């Protein structure tokens, strides 16, 4: 109860304060802006409901990019984490490359991806995958490495093969750390999708942000951000739920 009540109350208080400050014109005065550029939460809500079909369409387009990117990140991240855990050669070879891949700014890499993968869903999914596979790979690797060496010895005297130790001891033990990495991934995934859309797209919330920005549609801009944040929050919630179903021993 308290877990829901307190954040909800805080959110309501913040939105209420914002509503008062915006509708009275106090916030616009303070920022020295015309009131049209400082929309109140009610105006944002109106923009949302008036054009709900457009927002739903854009949200769906962005969600597809996010899900495809996350699926790729998951496959590559888990494979990389496993390979680095099982082989020192793989660890020494891959880890500098993986760290370097995260050091390259996404704004720089996104246009190149559009040139390579065209105008459709793939360049956006590629940006999402590029930023999301890192926390997943790191979560898998550190989770697998956290296995108790004494448990491994115990399994060896119980006739376990390397594969059985991986499957029965190391993998279940790595799940909490994997979920931590995956939660970071789903929260940053929308950022990747928006960057991808900014480079070139005819749909999605990222494109809507560019469009509303150019049109000085402040209320619409806020509405885009609200939908994007709600999407990230929903993905995070789903993952937390999955974790609670899977990691039942904590």
């Amino acid at each position, binding site marked *: 109860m308290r877990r829901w009540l307190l954040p909800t109350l805080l959110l309501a208080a913040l939105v209420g304060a914002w509503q008062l400050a915006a509708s009275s014109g106090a916030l616009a005065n303070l920022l020295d802006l015309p009131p049209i550029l400082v929309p109140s939460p009610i105006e944002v809500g109106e923009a949302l409901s008036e054009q709900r079909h457009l927002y739903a369409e854009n949200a769906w387009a962005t969600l597809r990019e996010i899900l495809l990117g996350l699926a790729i990140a998951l496959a590559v991240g888990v494979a990389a984490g496993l390979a680095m855990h099982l082989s020192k050669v793989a660890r020494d070879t891959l880890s500098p490359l993986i760290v370097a891949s995260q050091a390259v700014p996404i704004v720089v890499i996104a246009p190149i991806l559009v040139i390579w993968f065209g105008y459709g869903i793939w360049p956006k999914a590629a940006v999402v995958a590029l930023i999301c596979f890192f926390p997943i790979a790191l979560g898998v690797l550190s989770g697998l490495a956290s296995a*108790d060496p*004494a*448990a491994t*010895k*115990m*399994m*060896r*005297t*119980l*006739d*376990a*093969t390397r594969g*059985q130790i991986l499957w*029965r*001891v190391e993998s*279940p*033990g790595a799940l909490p750390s994997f979920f931590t990495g995956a939660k970071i991934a789903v929260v940053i995934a929308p950022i990747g999708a928006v960057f991808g859309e900014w480079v070139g797209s005819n749909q999605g919330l990222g494109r809507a942000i560019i469009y509303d920005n150019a049109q000085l549609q402040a209320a619409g801009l806020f509405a885009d951000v609200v939908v994007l944040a709600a999407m990230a929050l929903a993905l995070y919630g789903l993952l937390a739920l999955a974790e609670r179903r899977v990691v*039942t*021993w*904590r």
Partner: protein
Amino acid sequence: MPAKAKEFGVAEPLSSPAAAAGAEVSIRGLAHHYGDLQTIDGIDLEAPSHSVLGLVGPSGCGKSTLLELIAGLQEPTAGEIALGAASAARDRLSRCAFMPQRDLLLPWLSAIDNAALALRNRGMRRGEARREAGRLFGRFGLDGFERARPAELSGGMRQRVAFLRTLVAGKPVVALDEPFAALDAITRAEMQQWLAAALDADPRTVVLVTHDVEEALYLCDRVAVLSARPARVVDELSAPAPRVAERDDAVTDPEFVAVRERALRALHEGMR
């Protein structure tokens, strides 16, 4: 194989002639180094089939290393360890089950799946492995806890599941590394008495490492007192009445007390 052991339920793997013959442990001229650090310096020990050998020594003297060497988890720098006819590390590993200091039950598995780990590792199907391991739960005072996760069990119960897991592996030699060190004094005394009964019902050759002289003299047939690192044998004692039913009577018996004094003196001597 006595009828009692058959009834106890884990007799099958042991009753195969290969396992029954050659369950003795023999250590000759054993030495071990970690790099420049000498941990074990010339140890000779024998444990006949189905006897319990205790290793007592000061903390950090290399007891655990010695146990890992016996179990085949490591190779010695010099000397030989044989479990029956098996002397290569690989073969020792297949003849010795190892119970580590902490119970190390896997928290994501139920008690019964933890107990059945060795059977599953050998490719037995889950249902069959559970049936096999489950036959012992009653005997171990664990009836009704088959599906419980380790976190739901008390310290003593976890230790019993861990010992069950070791027994179900069906190996002729069992290496126990301070199995009751993490328990409180009362539970520890209860568990010692319980282990004594379990070993009489289902005899194995046991090598038991402990820092508790009383525990060693109650549970073991023979006790070797080790020196501080590098470990060598300071004294070897025979226990007056190993594993008798009433532990409290046994440990207060004058003869027991006298042997314990001698063991403690040897322990002090070895620390100098």
